[in-house]
């Protein structure tokens, strides 16, 4: 009853500013950084530089898209890095059957992890952070068992081509990340599943009473996130030219969550910002690249990234206590 009366007042400027910042801040920051680099960084606009940036950010974008959906469901998926490792580990085992079967199996592994995560969260009722933590730890261990703890070189031509080739100058990885962003955007905005996902994240009790298939939606979301992470694992392996389950996807869960949060998706669920997530990933990538290009050590870059995360979370908090 108190909120109702408060809401009739126009929001004060500070609040309105915070809302603008949350809605458009990440795009403005990306634009500012690009302008800065155009002005002060040598060779920034050269194709090779841009290409490197985009190739590096592509796996993060792909994983972050799945993460955005999970976070929109009022959850979080910590197992994405381990799923990348798992998918990297199974690739060399099945690459003998050809490129497509191997990739398919890698994606199925990601889907299976998603089923486990989703079931633990929606059926067993574990907190997402705990449920997925289990597979963060266990998944990488399993990956090392699959790979026998070894780095394995990739000789399959198609897979290597996927990692290094391009179409009309755009690397395949970047192309795939871009297409996925469009597809996920469509799924979230226009499909029944996507809208149900947002509703479940916004108010699970109400969604349940409205007859929504809450469990199916949640499991589906973790499956999608797992498949996307597995795909990122395939792409990372392809680019590296080797399957390295001990290193691939390390700390990816944190990069992905960062991209989602910086992109303006609230951790409280009920809203998914796909374009913001892509921009969030780009922003973090640009910040690091800019600092490194200007001879600041990686440690400084990490601290600045931390500051950006804090600002993003602070802005989000401001909005909630409106």
């Amino acid at each position: 009853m108190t909120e109702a009366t408060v809401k009739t007042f126009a929001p004060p400027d500070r609040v309105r500013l915070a809302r603008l910042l949350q809605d458009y801040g990440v795009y403005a920051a990306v634009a500012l950084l690009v302008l800065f680099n155009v002005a002060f960084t040598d060779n920034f606009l050269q194709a090779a530089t841009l290409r490197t940036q985009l190739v590096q950010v592509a796996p993060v974008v792909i994983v972050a898209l799945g993460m955005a959906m999970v976070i929109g469901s009022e959850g979080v998926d910590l197992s994405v890095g381990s799923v990348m490792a798992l998918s990297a580990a199974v690739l060399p085992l099945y690459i003998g059957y050809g490129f497509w079967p191997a990739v398919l199996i890698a994606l199925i592994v990601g889907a299976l992890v998603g089923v486990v995560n989703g079931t633990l969260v929606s059926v067993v009722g574990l907190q997402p952070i705990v449920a997925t933590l289990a597979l963060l730890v266990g998944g990488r261990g399993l990956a090392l068992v699959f790979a026998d703890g070894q780095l394995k070189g990739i000789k399959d031509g198609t897979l290597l081509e996927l990692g290094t080739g391009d179409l009309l100058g755009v690397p395949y990885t970047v192309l795939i990340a871009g297409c996925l962003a469009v597809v996920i955007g469509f799924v979230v905005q226009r499909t029944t599943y996507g809208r149900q996902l947002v509703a479940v994240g916004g108010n699970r009790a109400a969604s349940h009473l409205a007859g929504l298939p809450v469990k199916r939606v949640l499991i589906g979301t973790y499956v999608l996130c797992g498949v996307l992470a597995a795909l990122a694992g395939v792409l990372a392996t392809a680019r590296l030219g080797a399957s390295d389950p001990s290193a691939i996807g390390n700390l990816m869960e944190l990069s992905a969550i960062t991209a989602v949060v910086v992109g303006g998706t609230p951790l409280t669920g009920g809203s998914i910002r796909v374009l913001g997530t892509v921009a969030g990933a780009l922003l973090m990538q640009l910040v690091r690249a800019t600092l490194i290009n200007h001879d600041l050590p990686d440690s400084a870059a990490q601290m600045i990234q931390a500051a950006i995360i804090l600002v993003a979370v602070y802005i989000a908090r401001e909005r909630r206590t409106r």
Partner: protein
Amino acid sequence: MSQPVLDVRGVSKRFPGVLALDDVSLTVAPGEVHALVGENGAGKSTLIKILTGVYRPDAGDVFYRGEPVAFGRPLDAQAAGISTIYQEVNLVPLMSVARNLFLGREPRTRFGLIDVARMNREAGEQLARYGIEVDVRLPLRSLGLGAQQMVALARAVAVDARVVIMDEPTSSLEPREVDTLFRVVRELSGRGIAIVYVSHRLDELYQLCDRVTVLRDGRRVHTGALAQLDRLSLISLMLGRDAAEVRRDGLTGFSAHDAGDVEPILRVRNLSRAHQLHGISFEVRPGEVTGLGGLLGSGRSETAKAVVGALGADGEVTMAGRRLTRRSPAAAIRAGMAMLPEDRKAEGIVPGLSVRENIVLAAMPTLSRFGVVSRAKQDRIVDTFMKRLRIKAASPEQKVSELSGGNQQKVLLARWLCLNPRLLLLDEPTRGIDVGAKAEVQALIDELAADGLAVVLISSDLEELVEGADRIVVLRAGAVVGELAGDDVTEDNIMTALAQEPAHD
């Protein structure tokens, strides 16, 4: 009466838009068990929160042991000797019983370590005094809720409480546990500890309490000895109806005649759920508004939720001749039921979504093709219902959380009506909405029933219930205690049914 240990004088508390307490006074003597009663929104919890230091009063004073006090924090109140026992026990479930009992004042050894042996021994002795024989080394959560409550009580007393406030302490207890609790309460009162006892269960009040204070709409409407107040008068005080008007006859004259010979569309048989529902049976006919009457905590909302499968319960629910086997809200919707939940905010609206998306939430699968939502279909439905229910929003794309309570409620009604249900269960459809919207919602209920929809109406507002419902099923303590139909649907009859002595078992 001896010097009161707790003396509240003319306390008022205002929240934005509502006067929660208006010049309320309350005195409690040592050893007295004082009942504090009132319906939802009467101001009981606000008063308790002022006594325990959660809120500060805007006006008035609280005297404790003769001294004016103003507790800044709940901890201060506790330290001064005012303890509160909530329905959910606020102890540490994973710690042992003994640790919970001695939390913050554990006996120490010479080296400053906790003297576990002594702590366990003393804890066992203390609990045994209240008739609780448990292994005090076990974690608290391994105990039943009743025993946990007793531990909370023992702890409250052990920290030298002079006043113990008990807020609905028995709501989750077994009858046997209730007996133990009562014994402990009587013992405490015998030792001169004052008890403020909040409960909706009239039987308990009459068994336990000496005096009663009735709050209604933030005001104190009565204080006096409970023994001099019969049930009927107490209920009429709580509900704000004149006891003199209440006829005592008619109690036995329940006529079960139906509004017509129409076949019931919903038959509920023996709906039961531990502690909450005890064998509830009733029928609902199309074209008729069936009211569920009862005081707070009588199981009205639980009944509605159990019918639509949102709350697990045993018993049979037959909808349009088909018995529902796998019970879930989704199955209930498929069978043609729709329920408007009581808590609009927690269980109704999805705050971040637009008015449009909130309306189509349940109907979305039918408004899409191959899993892709059809905006054209949605817009048509949304437009129809926004006009029909006169939903006031800047546009269908406005966030639903920005709407007034009344308009949010209409959005939820639209969500259910666009499913074309055959049975509509409305839990407090007009609570917390403004007068204009209230009248509109009530008119809509009438209209829907006239169109042949079966409606179940739950309302704490007696007037609304009597005027809206053709038949009323009266619930008390999770059981049906009467059914009124036709001319018997009057406020007096409902109150009479509520005031009946419970059947002895």
